[in-house]
């Protein structure tokens, strides 16, 4: 039986804004889903040819490989500061930073908070997997109480190292930010919600509305020592209790 290719309808393809470079992410990690969502949003808003992406340090240090956009790879934690510089020098560009919790919420604390407090017209994607993935699974500021990591082998002890920091809630106390939300990717519904949130975060910038932050709860099956399925369940049932989902600020 012959197939007439002319009659076939393409229902699924790689977003135009993404390259076909090989992924460096682990199986079951949500970075891949998130990268695709951002690629789709760049396509839908037709902004890829005026977008600059900021790659952080960490698992997503290679982020500049995935997008067909101009990119800068920057020092650990400084992504929101570099995004600020680019956006102010060239306001016509759409600038987004892509940062993990070790980058955004630990070493980059000053840069992250002050970019938000200035209400920079940028889009920040903050990927929270509660661990330092690239360097071997060390405790992060976002690590859950009791969570075992290579540097908290007995579990995170808040009497010694404090509690998981809810960074988005801190930013939501500021007056300048336009949109602060926390999303997740552990099932289809949440992927669709996260997609809407990310689209809104870019649309806000296109419309000149100011600072948008999308925190995305992600998995780290490798360092959590869980299967991808267990990891999704862990986010849904445990992580979201510490880091509740939903919009924290929406002044758009």
């Amino acid at each position, binding site marked *: 039986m012959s197939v007439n290719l002319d009659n076939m309808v393409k229902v699924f393809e790689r977003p135009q804004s993404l390259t076909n470079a090989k992924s460096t992410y682990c199986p079951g990690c949500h970075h891949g889903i998130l990268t695709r969502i951002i690629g789709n949003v760049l396509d839908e808003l037709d902004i890829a040819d005026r977008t*600059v992406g900021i790659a952080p340090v960490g698992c997503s240090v290679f982020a500049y490989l995935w997008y067909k956009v*101009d990119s800068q*790879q920057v020092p650990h934690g400084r992504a929101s500061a570099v995004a600020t510089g680019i956006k102010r020098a060239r306001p*016509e*560009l759409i600038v987004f930073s892509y940062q993990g919790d070790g980058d955004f919420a630990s070493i980059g604390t000053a840069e992250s908070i002050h970019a938000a407090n200035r209400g920079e017209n940028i889009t920040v994607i903050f990927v929270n997997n509660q661990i330092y993935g690239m360097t071997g699974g060390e405790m992060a500021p976002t690590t859950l109480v009791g969570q075992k990591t290579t540097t908290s082998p007995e579990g995170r002890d808040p009497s010694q190292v404090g509690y998981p920091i809810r960074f988005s809630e801190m930013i939501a106390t500021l007056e300048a930010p336009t949109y602060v939300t926390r999303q997740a990717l552990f099932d289809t519904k949440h992927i669709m919600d996260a997609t809407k949130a990310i689209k809104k975060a870019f649309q806000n910038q296109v419309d000149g509305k100011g600072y948008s932050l999308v925190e995305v709860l992600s998995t780290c099956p490798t360092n959590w020592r869980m299967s991808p399925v267990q990891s999704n369940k862990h986010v849904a049932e445990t992580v979201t209790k510490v880091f509740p989902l939903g919009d924290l600020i929406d002044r758009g």
Partner: protein
Amino acid sequence: MRTMTSSSSPGISLKQEGISYLAGANLPCVIVNVVRGGPGLGNIAPSQCDYFQATKGGGHGDYRLIVLGPSTVPEAGELTMLAFELADQYRIPVMILADGLLGQMMEPVELPDPIDPASLPVKEWATTGAKGRAPNVILSFEMDPEGLQQINNDLQAKYQTITENELRYEETDTEDADIVIAAYGTIGRICKSVVRMARAEGIKVGLFRPITLWPFPYEPLKALSERVDTVLSVEMSAGQMWEDVRLAVAERAKTPFYGETGGVVPTPRSILNEVKKHVR
């Protein structure tokens, strides 16, 4: 688009991470350091104690900055224009190493005509949006050791070109000098007075003033040291440029040092007294 940043010693220490990344990513930038007394919080008085940091590294990695040492406010103006040109030409961070005296001084300056930014060459490598071209990526990151070695080799080749083409220095009354003072920046200026005072007393003193602190003018100073007995280094530090002076002079002449630290500024009289110690 051109960029600059400025601070004073402790702030420049904080910027070292970014300066290393600028060097690694071949990004032009002008950095002004108005040096104050250190180490630590030190104080806010004039000093030249950041010479090592400026000329030998400061941040991590095998890199160099072009370092310019103005000695007067008009020269600071000229060198600032030059700094932007060199930064763009070589895609390198350029530091203007001033000090707290120069930074708080008022002098008449004849400013050149401003440049229309639109007349500058387009920076094809900049991240301006990948419309109609392949994406540009700015980074200082290469996982492959041989790839990173090649990046380092390219940097070193650039530094060699700069060393061959961009040496700047000034000699004052060196033709018949027995003693030459080596000094830069504010101290270079003060030492011009010292040369006048010494010559009025019949002492044949000259001045060698490096303007590019990196690349350091080793060869011109080496040539000069063949003709003199003594090269006296004077600095507002414990002897930092002195090390480069000794590298240039080697055993060809005596290389004493006189310095003040902590924000103490040597007077022409104190330097002249030091010169006299080394006159035959």
